[in-house]
């Protein structure tokens, strides 16, 4: 094992030079083929309508227009996408019979440039018969509600009741039961780069090549191939080296890969489509809006006996894979950091006339922890103990790791008490409470919030099957699913420099920097001697179903694959050098960038020396050794198993931990919230680059703040989007960023090669909880508890005005 000279250092990002000087290569920088034509997508202005017909003749007659594809062509040429539930929901790349949300694609117009394409898109006539609309998930399940999919017969896409332990017994035995209803808003990520797709059909080879900023999971590759009726080895996905952010959202680009791919096949020209911001807000992807009913059963000392979750998750007009991950993605960590064993989850996945949903940073964990951590405060209040104590009392102990949760999760490592203590200490919790007492005495509204969260990373795709009934899964024709895999290839050129090739699709995470640090340490070289290539190409890269850069997997899967590939290559260098020295491999060791005799003095062989000899003179290799200096490693977690008959599944592979403390002051007259203090402590195992980790935490926290205070894809009762521009869909900017104090605890993962865990989603999943708790604590004298996000000033004012009205009367 080499010394870690580079791992743990804030090595400057090798990506930043090109990104900051405008030299990145994004999808819109791409003209990979000549004579590109440009697409504009015709979208539905109705939230719910039957399509009586299309008339593209006026558009086709316009100057510069090469062709139009309508939903009718899609119906003829495509199969529907596979969905994650058994209900008969037919989801196509464009609407074929009805539109079910505003912004749903109904046709594609291709012209010489985007301006002409948009002119012609306006000329495509679609004959709509408007239908009644429903946008609220609760109303969508009422009898008499408009039904989106007649074949389903209701708006329920799926329902599961999951029972772990004996929740009925827990509630029967409880001294106290606390109940609350919550609403979590629909919001996305608004990456600075929108979706982009370029498609070329090569009719002679029968190959469809699609360049796009798709980031995985690559399960979508076979899915798209099936929709288009192509063999998988005739469908090529290529991802440019730079993607301008995703945060999960770009995994949902795949319907457009099929739509633009089909258009290129039909029209026989290469086509480019870049989503504009209006389209992005209207119809890309978001998390679900959820109505949740929560119940906690506890002893009077605050010990939790069990919980009940009931959810209505609103997935919009169709259910698009990997939904219903909105309900089941966190299955293994449903209980969060707490010890209780009895849980009932009643999850309904509901379709309404809103845009479609999918993974969004923290995938469903922002919802989960908002509810759970609010409940912890309500429980503390009910039993009359401090919110710190009620959490301490229920935390999983440090001695319990690895810890198997009742829902099947395997928490690999951690010390939750120590991490929580560190957060309390860093925030000066006791002093904040004194500050609060003084503020309250002066009639001011000052509050302190806490939030604890298990931070799951590297989804095990097996969790998706939790949506299916165990009886269904027990059928012999059902094929179980599991896995979390990434690959890396490391090769040494004849002059001793290293190239590493990844199958990842970074969106700003700094994979090139991280990989160069790891390889530098493994091979005893400098990071600058490593060139990292991460342009994904399904024809040339080693990949599998669960490949891709999503679910915070690079920090553990990609890094493990990289280290293992480097070690394989190192073993080869050792064997080769031993052969050259005429000793056994056990008599030499790899250190300081070369192979040395363990005992005695001999001339060491440097990597450069070995590389030159191995490449230029294969005769010098020992018998049986493969020529060339390269090694590929594919790392897969062995703890990623399929869901069992009791609905238990280890839905992630590593589990970090987050403890946060926030203090706020609320101005009761304007309802403005000021963040006075915000401390966040993370345990993500071994940290490879602290600067990159901090960047992820800042970004995650701001993202969570967006959902908590600013961002909502809001609809009116007619299903029209009310927040379709950045004037109305408010994203927090640098001006809204609070000071963030970051601390770390390090509990290395025993499951990864370097002990690292994922951290890309981080505080996005805790900030909605911590700020809702802080604001509720601030407004406690008025009897206000936050149950709904975002806490817009107007909403908060209504609560304050109502409470003050009550206190006065």
């Amino acid at each position, binding site marked *: 094992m080499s010394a870690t000279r580079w791992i743990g250092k804030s090595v400057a990002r090798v990506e930043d030079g090109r990104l900051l000087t405008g030299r990145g290569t994004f999808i819109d920088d791409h003209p990979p083929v000549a004579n590109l034509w440009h697409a504009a997508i015709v979208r539905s202005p109705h939230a719910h309508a039957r399509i009586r017909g299309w008339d593209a003749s006026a558009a086709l007659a316009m100057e510069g227009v090469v062709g139009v594809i309508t939903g009718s062509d899609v119906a003829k040429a495509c199969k529907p996408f596979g969905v994650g539930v058994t209900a008969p929901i037919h989801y196509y790349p464009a609407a074929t019979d009805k539109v079910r949300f505003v912004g749903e694609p109904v046709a594609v117009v291709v012209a010489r440039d985007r*301006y002409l394409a948009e*002119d012609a898109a306006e000329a495509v006539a679609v004959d709509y018969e408007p239908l009644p609309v429903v946008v609220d998930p609760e109303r969508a399940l009422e009898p008499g509600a408009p039904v989106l999919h007649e074949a389903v017969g209701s708006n329920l896409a799926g329902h599961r009741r999951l029972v772990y332990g004996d929740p009925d017994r827990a509630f029967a035995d409880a001294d106290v039961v606390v109940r609350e209803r919550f609403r979590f808003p629909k919001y996305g990520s608004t990456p600075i780069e929108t979706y982009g797709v370029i498609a070329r059909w090569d009719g002679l080879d029968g190959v469809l090549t699609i360049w796009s900023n798709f980031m995985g999971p690559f399960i979508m590759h076979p899915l798209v191939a099936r929709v288009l009726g192509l063999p998988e080895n005739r469908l090529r996905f290529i991802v440019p080296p730079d993607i301008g952010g995703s945060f999960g959202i770009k995994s949902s680009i795949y319907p457009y890969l099929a739509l633009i791919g089909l258009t290129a096949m039909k029209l026989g020209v290469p086509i480019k489509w870049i989503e504009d911001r*209006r389209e992005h807000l209207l119809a890309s992807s978001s998390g679900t809006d959820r109505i949740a009913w929560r119940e906690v059963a506890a002893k009077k000392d605050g010990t939790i006996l069990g919980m009940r979750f009931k959810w209505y998750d609103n997935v919009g007009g169709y259910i698009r894979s990997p939904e219903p991950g909105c309900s089941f993605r966190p299955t293994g960590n449903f209980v969060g950091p707490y010890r209780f064993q009895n849980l009932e989850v009643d999850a309904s996945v509901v379709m309404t006339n809103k845009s479609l949903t999918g993974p969004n940073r923290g995938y469903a964990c922002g919802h989960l922890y908002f509810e759970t951590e609010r409940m912890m405060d309500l429980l503390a209040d009910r039993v009359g103990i401090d919110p710190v104590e009620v959490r301490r009392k229920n935390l999983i102990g440090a001695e319990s790791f690895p810890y198997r949760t009742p829902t099947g999760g395997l928490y690999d490592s951690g010390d939750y008490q120590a991490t929580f203590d560190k957060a309390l200490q860093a925030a000066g919790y006791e002093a904040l409470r004194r500050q609060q007492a003084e503020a309250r005495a002066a009639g001011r509204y000052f509050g302190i919030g806490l939030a604890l969260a298990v931070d799951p990373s590297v989804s095990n795709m097996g969790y998706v099957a939790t949506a299916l009934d165990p009886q269904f899964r027990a059928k012999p024709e059902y094929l179980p699913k599991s896995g979390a895999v990434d690959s890396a290839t490391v090769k040494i050129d004849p002059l001793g420099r290293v190239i590493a090739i990844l199958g990842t699709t970074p969106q700003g995470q700094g994979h090139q920097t991280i990989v160069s640090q790891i390889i530098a340490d493994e091979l005893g070289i400098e990071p600058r001697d490593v060139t990292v290539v991460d342009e994904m190409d399904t024809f040339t890269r080693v990949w599998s179903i669960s490949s891709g850069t999503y679910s915070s997997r690079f920090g553990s899967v990609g890094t493990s694959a990289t280290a293992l590939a480097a070690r394989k290559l190192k073993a080869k260098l050792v064997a080769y050098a031993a052969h050259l020295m005429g000793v056994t491999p056990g008599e030499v060791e790899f250190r300081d960038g070369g192979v040395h005799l363990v005992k005695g003095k001999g001339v060491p062989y440097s990597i450069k020396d070995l590389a030159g000899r191995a490449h230029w003179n294969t005769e010098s290799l020992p018998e049986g050794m493969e020529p060339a200096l390269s090694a590929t490693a594919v790392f897969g977690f062995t703890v990623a198993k399929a869901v069992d008959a009791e609905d238990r599944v280890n839905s992630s592979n590593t589990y970090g931990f987050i403890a946060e403390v926030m203090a706020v002051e609320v101005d009761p007259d304007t309802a403005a919230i000021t963040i006075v203090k915000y401390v966040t402590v993370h345990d993500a195992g071994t940290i490879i680059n602290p600067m990159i980790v901090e960047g992820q935490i800042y970004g995650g926290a701001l993202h969570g703040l967006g959902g908590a205070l600013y961002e909502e894809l809001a609809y009116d009762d007619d299903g029209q989007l009310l927040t379709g*521009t950045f004037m109305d869909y*408010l994203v927090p900017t640098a001006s809204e960023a609070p000071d963030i104090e970051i601390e770390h605890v390090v509990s290395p993962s025993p499951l990864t090669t370097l002990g690292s865990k994922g951290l890309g989603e981080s505080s996005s999943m805790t900030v909605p909880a911590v700020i809702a708790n802080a604001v509720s604590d601030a407004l406690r004298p008025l009897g206000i508890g936050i149950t709904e996000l975002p806490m817009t000033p*107007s909403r908060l004012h209504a609560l304050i005005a109502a409470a003050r009205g009550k206190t006065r009367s």
Partner: protein
Amino acid sequence: MKPARFEYHAAESVEHAVELLTRYGGDAKVLAGGQSLVPMLNFRLARPAALVDVNRIPPLAFIREDNGTVAFGAMTRQRTIEFSPVVARRLPLLREATRWVGHLPIRSRGTIGGSIAHADPSAEYPAVLTALDGEVVVQGPRGRRTVRPAALFETYLTTSLAPDDLLVEVRLPAMPAGAGYAFEEFARRHGDFAIVGIAAMVAREGGRCAAARLAAAGAGPVPVRLRSAEEILERDGLGEAALEAAAARAAELVQPDSDIHASAEYRRHLTRVLTLRALKRALGVTKS
């Protein structure tokens, strides 16, 4: 988000601009800083046959102090106003309001004439124009005239200017020496249009209020001059009770609407809260 086809004309003079506007008979738009118009073009919410670009008419950008009035060429950038010594000295209320206008890149392009002619009732400059009861100079095919704010703003994004009128100048009366002033605003984020903004100026003579000027942004379809609230101060002085009464009156004078960002009730409430804060700050009563 590509605009529909339009013709583009770079006007060489005010007369040329008016001639072009006349030629299109109401189907042309004036391009000033473009901070509102260009997004509207890209959304195809505005589909003019032509744009008349007035950025290349040099005489339209100036700040001149003359006889107790500060005159601004319509194309004076907000960023210029922010750092103008004349504005700092004679119209500190306008300088403070400018800091609430968008972000630096917006202020670098945005103009005082464009902001006023666009007539967004949540914008800061229309409120300052209204509070100080300035005027705009308009050139049309039949010559120049001046228009007072009460006659200028008709409703959301709508003024009384004719399609072939060009707003060429904004005139604001210089504030009395030593007058207190404040621009209070509440927006959901820094740089957003106001949910409610209050422009306030108070000139005192001893304990007496010689003149009070108040206007609200964001509290209805046009910026609202809060004259009868001003009168309370001019009549009853500047004691706590008078300030409270003026703020309460202000809230009665506005007719706000509800939208995605705020209810009408909240806007009315904020009008009272921010009027009181603006007056107190204008008087230097509150400690910062």
